[in-house]
């Protein structure tokens, strides 16, 4: 089926679960049409299209900032032309699994900020919850509209060597990356329209409108025609492009903290025709910086009096304050327990086995097996604060042992997962590269999972780190309809 000359002939799909190939030379059925297209193309032609895609990202300024600060560089997120394809049934299960997870986590958040039943249940050590950095006493007893705390969630899924999906972590605070989902599709359609002809692919362009509906749904009851704004930390934030992209696509103002002020229990923005009332803030600024009166006093990114106004129920925040406790990496270990406790169900997508260093016996296990484990700081994200045991030196192992003993609450560990691989275009041939999948879940009156999501790919050969800040790229992700 695959000819010798084709770029697919030399591809080695062994050693890991490969998304496209079942065995060397044997393409999985749903990738066959794509494989046929790839066979007709010379390496030059693929390279040409790759370059066209890169230029398109560059010209449209679809960038993220690295080296934070005024002199920060902007880079494009490397884009890999070969799309990832997900079968309808696979997707259905992912969808149901994420919906279950997000529902349970919102019940959990409501509980811990109200009656705290789970705190007395003996199922999760209360100090793990109440001592989490993301736990905010400031939002106790607040009733968010519809009981929803996490309006936007991006959970990271991975696939192991048997092709089984796992949730690796949940991002419940200000998950980013969704603009790439929309832009990757747009660019791939522009530079390689032919490959779309063979598939019925569920669209992702509707995301901004879906998000806007959710934001309107969580407006405080006092608002009639809700004015929604997006609050950005500013141009130096790594996700600034996304903020501008979403604001424009939703047709709402993108504001900075200094554009807003509070008067008489109302948030206003400063406009050229005077003050204008704001009802819902889609905030892309972390809790700590949202209100200098309540949180970090030195923050310039927030709005003085915002917390008080939120507590009065006179402005909506998405995501709500205080969601960080539920994506704490130590709490993550208990998500199956949380699902069982609130929904009475078993989890549909399993967790990765996680050892919590705060627990003495699990800590002992981590210290002993550190060379086999991935150790993560509970408060870091973006691939920082992480030790990949098998790839690390003896000195690094010792360093992390020391850190864990000094701050057990600060660390968890997981077995290394042999992430699945996907053919990716590298120089002049297809090479297997490790991938994950970040779908986006919207929660207003109902839960919507955008069909697709961001497939992140570790473009460096052998690397397991898919984060854009660490040399990762992205692929268009097709959910077949």
């Amino acid at each position, binding site marked *: 089926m695959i000819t010798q000359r084709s770029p697919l002939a030399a591809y080695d799909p062994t050693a890991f679960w490969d998304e496209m190939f079942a065995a060397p030379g044997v393409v999985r059925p749903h990738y066959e049409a794509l494989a046929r297209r790839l066979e007709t193309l010379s390496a030059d032609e693929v390279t040409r299209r790759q370059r066209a895609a890169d230029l398109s990202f560059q010209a*449209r*300024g679809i960038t993220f900032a690295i080296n934070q600060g*005024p002199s920060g560089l902007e880079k494009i997120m490397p884009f890999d032309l070969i799309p990832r394809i997900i079968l309808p049934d696979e997707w259905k299960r992912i969808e149901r699994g994420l919906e279950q997870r997000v529902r349970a986590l919102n019940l959990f958040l409501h509980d811990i900020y109200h009656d705290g039943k789970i705190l007395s249940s003996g199922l999760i050590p209360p100090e793990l919850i109440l001592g989490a950095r993301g736990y905010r006493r400031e939002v106790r007893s607040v009733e968010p509209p519809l009981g929803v705390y996490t309006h936007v969630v991006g959970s990271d899924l991975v696939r192991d060597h048997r092709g089984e999906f796992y949730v690796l972590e949940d991002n419940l605070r200000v998950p980013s990356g969704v603009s790439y989902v929309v832009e990757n599709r747009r660019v791939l359609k522009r530079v390689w329209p032919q490959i779309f002809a063979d598939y019925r692919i569920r669209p992702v362009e509707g995301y901004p409108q879906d998000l806007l509906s959710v934001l309107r749904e969580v407006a405080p009851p006092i608002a009639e025609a809700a004015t929604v704004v997006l609050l950005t930390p500013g*141009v130096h*934030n790594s996700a600034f492009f996304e903020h501008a992209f979403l604001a*424009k696509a939703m047709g709402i103002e993108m504001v900075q903290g*200094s554009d807003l002020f509070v008067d008489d229990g109302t948030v206003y923005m*400063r406009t050229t025709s005077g003050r204008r009332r704001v009802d819902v803030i889609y905030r892309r600024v972390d809790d700590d910086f949202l209100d200098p009166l309540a949180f970090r006093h*030195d923050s310039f990114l927030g709005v003085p009096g915002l917390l008080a106004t939120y507590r009065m129920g006179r402005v909506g925040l998405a995501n709500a304050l205080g969601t960080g406790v539920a994506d704490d990496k130590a709490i993550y270990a208990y998500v199956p327990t949380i699902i069982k406790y609130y929904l009475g169900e078993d989890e549909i997508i399993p967790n990765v086995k996680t050892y919590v260093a705060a627990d003495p016996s699990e800590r002992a296990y981590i210290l002993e097996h550190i060379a086999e484990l991935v150790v993560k700081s509970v408060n870091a994200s973006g691939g920082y604060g992480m030790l990949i045991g098998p790839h690390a030196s003896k000195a690094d192992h010792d360093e992390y042992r020391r850190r864990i003993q000094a701050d057990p609450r600060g660390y968890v560990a997981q077995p290394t997962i042999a992430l699945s691989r996907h053919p990716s275009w590298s120089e002049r041939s297809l090479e297997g590269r490790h991938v994950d999948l970040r779908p986006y879940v919207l929660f207003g009156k109902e839960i919507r999972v955008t069909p697709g999501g961001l497939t992140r790919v570790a473009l460096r050969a052998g690397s397991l780190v898919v984060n854009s800040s660490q040399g990762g790229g992205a692929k268009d992700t097709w959910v077949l309809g």
Partner: protein
Amino acid sequence: MLCRVADDLYWMARYVERGIAVSRLIDVTRHLELDVGAEESDFWGPLVGAIDLSGEAVSFFLLSDQLNPDSLVSCVRHARELARGVRESISSEMWEELNTLQQSLALPSKQRQAQGDSVSFQRLVRQRLQYLQGLAGSTLAHDEPWDFLSLGTYLERADGVVRLLRRQAHLLAPRDDEDTSDADMVRWLAVLRSCGSAEAYARFYSLRVEPARIVEFLLLNPVFPQSVRFALGAAQDALSAVAALRSAAANDPGPAVRSLGRVHADIEHAAIDEIFESGLEDFLFGVQQSIAQVSDEIAATYLRDEPEPSRLVGVARAAALMAAQQQQQQ
């Protein structure tokens, strides 16, 4: 529309217009040098209010000096930085044009060109900035963002032309002797060219190059877009549109509208002979003062009005802190 966005659009337009003016000035001075001869006189020094500077040094200062905030490359960089922050308020075409222009200026090959063939370099940049102005007109709805862009463009233009005339006022002052040398002619033409106005002038005055006519043309012409009168009129139109949104019911349109109306009316009703009689330099100085006042009033009413933030809870402005605050991502 957010005050911050209006502010950024207004300044973006000013930097684009400023870049065009700087570029023209360099172009004209190069030609002047060729026409009259470099040893004949010092043309470059007065451009930056300095003497004993080589043409190379001044040209570098105006063209590619990153440390000069008003150099051509700095203008492009500022405009692009501002555009980046308000990219949701301008068209994608405008953003892409400005973004690719800025990126191309950063290329080593372009920087070499700026050194070697500065004439075609600055001409190319100027053309792209003018193209950007055209794009704004054809890809943006002519509503509030457009009004702030126009306001910035035309106030900058009026200010720039007045500035240039003030710098050349000594050349243009009426003289007792009737003999005009070739060198004088060349200089006067250069003033016109600096404002991109030589051809249009020829249409109006059939090549009779006289200082008074030049000043009249650049100050008072009602229909030529590089004249101060035209620019102030266009700025006034834009400001009125903006002001109408703010105070539809009020009788008082605000200080900026009143001040701009006044200076525009002064120019509209001025006669060139009277201006020369009462002193060109004084007149130009007065106009420039008025434009500065209008700019301040616009800022206070519509733009980012930021008094020093003074917070009881403590203020720290360290760059490291800002970076830490912005480094939040998931």
